């Protein structure tokens, strides 16, 4: 019940802000405008068939949406905890029946609800692709899963920064830097190490790209037989990159969530050292007045 109270309050506060509706409107406008420009420039007179037009539109919308999710989601969580501290309301949350997990989970769910609202709001736009054809429902489902996991990872990292760092601008900057590094680093490394990006049977590239959202998203596209992207192999089971992306990043999310739960309560280092030391027998105090 304490969790429900926190979640209700968070959702009320977030949805009452003018910023929320403007973010939603801008998000849909950007997607619509880019989609409209794509359709108006690539028509059948340019050699496009209806199905290739649909496939091209879908590709464009998918990568625009992925970029927007990575750009917008951190903003929903990077000030969740340190914002409460700055507003001087955090101590009052601590002195309640909210457990550390409920506190962190309530903040995370409320932040992610905003991100999922954006994803849900874009569904009608994506459904336009089915009008043209060229994309199957299974592919759309895989793409949606990658969107959701990307939002969860980025949101959880933002929350982790918010529990770790005192100042909201610093935690926001660090979270955005993580997003950029998360996307760019594997491509940069593959360039510096001169690895083949389409990495069939290349062990180094396989490891470098294992959690990368861009590659995971590319792997959801039907690239035909003998796809250059290949697949990951775990104990004889062959897994597509988007599946390994989901597994690896959900594990990362759990680690970040547990760290946030530990850090959110006061004196985390002291509690850790007390946990390490042998629990001494409790000395009950005898009341003396």
């Amino acid at each position, binding site marked *: 019940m304490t969790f429900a*109270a926190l979640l209700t309050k968070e959702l*009320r506060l977030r949805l009452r802000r003018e910023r929320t509706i403007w973010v939603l409107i801008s998000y849909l406008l950007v997607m619509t405008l880019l989609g409209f420009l794509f359709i108006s420039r690539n028509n059948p007179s340019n050699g496009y068939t209806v199905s290739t037009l649909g496939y091209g539109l879908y590709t464009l919308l998918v990568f625009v949406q992925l970029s927007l999710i990575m750009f917008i989601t951190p903003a929903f969580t990077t000030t969740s905890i340190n914002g409460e501290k700055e507003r001087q*309301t955090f101590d*009052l949350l601590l*002195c309640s029946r909210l457990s550390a997990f409920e506190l962190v989970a309530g903040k995370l769910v409320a932040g992610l609800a905003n991100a999922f609202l954006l994803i849900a709001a874009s569904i009608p736009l994506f459904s336009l692709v089915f009008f043209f054809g060229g994309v199957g429902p299974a592919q759309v489902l895989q793409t949606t899963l990658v969107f959701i996991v990307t939002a969860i990872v980025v949101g959880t990292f933002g929350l982790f920064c918010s529990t770790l760092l005192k100042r909201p601008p610093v935690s926001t900057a660090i979270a955005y830097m993580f997003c950029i590094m998360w996307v760019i680093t594997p491509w940069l490394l593959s360039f510096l190490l001169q690895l083949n990006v389409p990495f069939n049977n290349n062990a180094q590239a396989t490891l470098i790209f294992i959690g990368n959202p861009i590659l995971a998203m590319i792997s959801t596209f039907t690239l035909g037989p003998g796809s250059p992207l290949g697949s990951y192999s775990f104990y004889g089971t062959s897994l597509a990159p988007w599946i390994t992306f989901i597994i690896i990043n959900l594990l990362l999310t759990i680690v970040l969530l547990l760290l946030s739960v530990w850090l959110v309560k006061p004196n985390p280092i002291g509690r850790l050292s007390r946990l390490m030391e042998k629990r001494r027998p409790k000395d009950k105090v005898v*009341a003396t007045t």
Partner: protein
Amino acid sequence: MIKIQHIYKSYRKVDALKGLSLQIPQGSIYGLIGPNGAGKTTLIRILAALLAPTRGEVWFDGEEVVRQPALIQRKVGYMPDFFGVYPDLTAVEYLEFYAGIHGIPRKKQASTVNDLLELAEMCTDIAIIQGGQLVVAGDVEHVTRRIGGGRQIEIRVLERVPETTALLKEIEGINNVTRKW
């Protein structure tokens, strides 16, 4: 009962508390009086398990505060001298939120909130319960940022009423009605 044994608290080179010992028996009322920087806030934050002492021990009803912070925080009512309010919640929503995170069942929240608002004379003609639903108007309906500073302090005090067992501080700015309880 609260038992404080030789506690020290240092912030870098500044000693906020130096070897303080104190026993507060159950049922008694204690006031901490001192100039700014004397360590009053530090002591209260340590008692509320929001801050760990550098040295020494604090016991609350036989439990060591640093070992059982969650347990202590459930027992303690804590009102800081400076506090913020959530800008877009009404007074009723604000109190319902705190009632919720303090474990008051949803069914009892409306009546509890109404009682508290009556106590503060905020709902003399504005809070009516109809069919179990709290129907509100006037001050209570305003979001907290539109309510004056004194009123905000009242709301903050009220939210502590159901749970307060030990600590209350800095009651400047609260009207006489609220002060009575």
